């Protein structure tokens, strides 16, 4: 079973796959440039001590995104 959720809801330690971007304009461009294109594997690593931003690992590097950005990304999560 596959479930679609927002990247911001992907729990720490879980992997997902990018389905699509909801972002528009500049922020879409930024996310794309970082490599968040459909089918990219992405893992939630940790939250910042103050809760936001969150650290993700994709395409080999660690990238911190704020909640607002992470909500712009739709990911699919394989249910165990």
């Amino acid at each position, binding site marked *: 079973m596959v479930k679609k959720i927002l990247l911001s809801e992907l729990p720490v330690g879980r992997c997902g796959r990018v389905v699509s*971007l909801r972002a*528009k*304009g*500049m*922020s*879409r*461009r*930024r*996310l*794309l*440039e*970082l*490599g968040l*294109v*459909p*089918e*990219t594997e992405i893992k939630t*690593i*940790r*939250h*910042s*001590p*103050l*809760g*936001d*931003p969150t*650290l993700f690992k994709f*395409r080999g*590097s*660690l*990238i*911190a*995104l*704020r909640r*607002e*950005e992470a909500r712009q990304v739709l990911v699919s999560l394989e249910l165990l």
Partner: protein
Amino acid sequence: MNLTESPIRDRIVKTIYQEAESITSRVVRRKKSVFDWDTKLDDILTSWWFGLPIMFLLLGLVFWLTIIGANYPSQLLAKILFWGQDQLSVIFQWFGAPQWLHDFFVLGVYRTVAWVVSVMLPPMAIFFPLFALLEDLGYLPRLAFNLDRLFKLAGAHGKQALTMCMGFGCNAAGVTACRIIESPRERLIAVLTNNFVPCNGRFPTLITLAFIFMGGLAGVGAASLTVAGIVMTGVAVTLLTAWFLSKTLLKGVPSTFALELSPYRLPQIGRTIIRSLLDRTVIILTRAVLVAAPAGGLVWVLANVRPGEHSILVQGAGLLQPLGKALGLDGFILLSFILGLPANEIVLPILLMSYLSVSSMVEPDNLLALKMLLVNGQGWTWLTALCTMLFSLLHFPCGTTLFTIWRETKSAKWTGLAIIIPFMVASMVCFAINWTIRTLGLI
């Protein structure tokens, strides 16, 4: 149609990334790493429990090492340089130079340079190598990661933390570094508030005052805590000002934030330390010659030319005395900050020269003597020291920084505001502290 929403572009980007992925899969082999240092370190440095405490601890530790390490070489340097001053005097006498010429060069130019070098060089030659080690390790992006929430609440960008780190070295460099913030609104906020980070030229002033007033000659710990507290105040004021700006002049919602946390890399300890030490020494010596020397000469003239009963310096200070007093300072202190506009390094030397020109105290060649001059000669209290430190932290950017702000914003309005906003903040904070302490009768 706009490029940013072009689905063609989406597909192009996707093709390129997929190609990169497929090439990588054919070229790169990974063995399961035995021990993942990066994750382990991040588990500590960005953890919920330890992330922020470790940040404070590191900050405190760096100041403590700086203050304790700088004390001895600072005294040694002062001894050597003031011995040099005596020799210089002898040479001038030997040539039979007129008294005013001797005073101009020796008491004006040379003495200012000697003060700048002996006060600035040792602490900065310790602080910056330590800082460079943290920078090369990869700690700075973690700092931005840990603090971003606060910047977001203030309507600013988390990368501002990085630009503030650069501001420690020099506010002009900090302002230039603001280019890493993509959104113009947040960038402008970072530019306008960078001055609230004490730079290379102000740090030693803070350290010196904290050392002689808060620490006593024994309590390095108390002095470090004071300096750390002042720096934290700077951060707090930065956030508050950013918040205020994003509610008024620079209205808007936070834009996108994406920050790559670079992998930790073991610094080349020896090379990093030596490199940064040499860098700093060159910077400080260059500025001592280019700025402190002429400023020393100029201030000597101001302190010795007497159009009326008093010297120009004393008259100027007299004009500023009421405002200075209200801010917990005095006219001379305020005047020194104004005359120190070209470079913050020269504020303290100008102040000392002004004091010496009106008092019969002997010239201070060590910190104890400096304390005597300030306390016994000029009636400084710990409150005066505190207000001076806060004013130094907050006042207005130096000339170089202002020029850089103008270059980066290309706007007279924002450059003007870069003077007015900090000056108002500094005045309000100093006034409030001074008024509160005095009203409560704590002094």
